[in-house]
């Protein structure tokens, strides 16, 4: 058992049963089945257009699914707006392009949701925000605007912004894909330290080094379905399906 897996317990954090999704006529997600335990770290990989981003965006309902069941923290995702809000409060998300609010300072980015969603007093929200900004090692940037920061710094702010809501689950949608190579490690370090603290994480990423050290399970997706699901050692050393082998040979040779 890996070092990170010791935080795992039997409680199920995310349960997806037979989920399908269509864009118009196009069948993007096909019969997705997945269960993620509390404290588990999942890495999702696959070629571009394989539906991996779409899948994790279904988990906090940025995308709607049309068939099957998604249960997050014991709440089933339906059209019920209240339940969707409840889930979004518990699930943090980090985007490929950061999506920081450019008209607000770093500190305001972090306190906005606690103040307006959790109704936290301003001082308390700011104290929490500073705590998390220190965690991601940029407290000195608190009063700057996102446009003044580097890509790596912006992504760390985005992580801090999510953490300020005290989420029980974190979703990462290719958090390092838009970054210059020299900035990738600072973001990955932040994610690794988060993993070590026992956060439940689902990460779409091509950083195979990260997958090897942190993941409890690696999921390989292609053409809208989950092809292979295995612990990282098994996944990398002894992939079963042809498509997985092909993908791994491409990504390991090029990267």
């Amino acid at each position: 058992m890996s070092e990170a897996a010791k935080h795992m317990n039997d409680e199920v954090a995310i349960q997806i049963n037979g989920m399908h999704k269509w864009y118009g006529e196009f069948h993007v997600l096909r019969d997705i089945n997945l269960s993620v335990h509390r404290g588990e770290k999942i890495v999702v990989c696959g070629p571009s257009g394989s539906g991996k981003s779409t899948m994790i965006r279904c988990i906090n309902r940025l995308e709607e699914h049309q068939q099957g069941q998604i249960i997050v923290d014991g709440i089933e995702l339906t059209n019920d707006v209240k339940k969707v809000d409840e889930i979004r409060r518990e699930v943090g998300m980090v985007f490929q392009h950061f999506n920081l609010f450019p008209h607000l300072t770093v500190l305001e980015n972090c306190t906005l949701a606690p103040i307006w969603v959790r109704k936290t007093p301003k001082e308390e929200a700011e104290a929490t925000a500073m705590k998390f900004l220190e965690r991601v090692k940029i407290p000195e940037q608190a009063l700057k605007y996102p446009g003044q920061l580097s890509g790596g710094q912006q992504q760390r702010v985005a992580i801090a912004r999510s953490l300020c809501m005290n989420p029980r689950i974190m979703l990462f949608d290719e958090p390092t894909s838009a970054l210059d190579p020299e900035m990738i490690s600072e973001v990955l370090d932040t994610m690794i330290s988060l993993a070590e603290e026992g956060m439940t994480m689902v990460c779409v990423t091509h950083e195979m080094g990260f997958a090897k050290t942190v993941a409890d399970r690696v999921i390989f997706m292609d053409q809208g379905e989950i092809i292979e699901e295995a612990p990282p050692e098994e996944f990398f050393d002894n992939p079963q399906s042809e498509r997985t082998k092909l993908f791994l040979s491409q990504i390991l040779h090029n990267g």
Partner: protein
Amino acid sequence: MTADVPGMSEGAKVSPFRDPKVRALFFQILVIVTFLAFVYYIADNTITNLEKRGIASGFDFLSQNSGFDIGIVLFVDYNAQTSTHGDVLLIGIINTLAVSLSGIVLATIIGFVFGVLRLSNNWLVNKIASVYIEVVRNIPLLVQLLFWYLAVLLELPNVRESAKIGESIALNNRGLYFPSIVPEAGFWLIPVAFAVGIIATIFVSRWAHKRQDETGQPFPVISTGFGLILGLPIVAALVMGLPFGFEYPAMGRFNISGGWVVKPEFMALFLGLSIYTGGFIAEIVRSGINAVSHGQTEAANSLGIKPNITMRLIIIPQALRVIIPPLTSQYLNLTKNSSLATAIGYSEIVAIFAGTSLNQTGQAIEIIALTMLFYLTISLIISVFMNWYNSRIALVER
């Protein structure tokens, strides 16, 4: 080796005709001389022409009696026998500002409503909004003004057959009539209550901010503010025992007297300008909101922020940066376009001052210059505001 060191001595030998600085200077002097010669030529011709035609010059005409009637006069007293061309200028300015400001308000409302409808995910609503925008923007404003004035408002029934709502509001080809409010003793409390309402709202909003900072509990400032601003005057009116009366327009056989009236000239210009400019503003609003990337909404959603708060704190502040600059230039356009009133007889600056006064005095140069100066001042004020706004809201980037 004692080769010559190529130095500045070489540069001194350059022929002045090849030195770009000398050339530039020469060219600029040429421009100035040509410009002055041109001005002199025009001025000389003009002076000769004016003398031949016996037209006076200078601004004395402003204090001469005007001698003509003006259809719509607001706020000032005007009398054809005693008032001057200076008064005409003043009335022209007031009327221009009156129709422009009211037009700006309605155009903004129309523009924002249709801009948002244009973004609706309801197919039918979306199409209706886009038909409105495409029709209105692609037909000349003057055609629309003449349509509203000659084909709609002047074709309304005459006084005897007025369309009426109740007994007090009447619409006919002389205008829209409604009762005027006549203040009685104790009326003063109502405007006072209104002012108190506004001040109280400011205080409530400050207090609410502070409370949210301290306890995290938000307070419904907007609805409370509405209640205070509208409610207090109503309470005041009730307390003073409704201290006002109405003067109803009295329908004669051919005429209506009393009450307040909106003349068709004003209405046509007001409607025409607002509907036309509203179409342009709708496009500006649509593209402004579209300019905020979808990722912003997604980020706010994923933090669990409710849609109305996302709109208020994330989308609108960012969209406004994109919207405000072209919006102000639309406001300026609307003000300039109000000069088309000349064609439908609304008495704004171009119609009465650059039109009638010019015809009477013949002092074209002074009058056109004053008229242009007026528009120049307005556009200067607006561009000063724009620069201030842009520097204030510019996104900080590195």
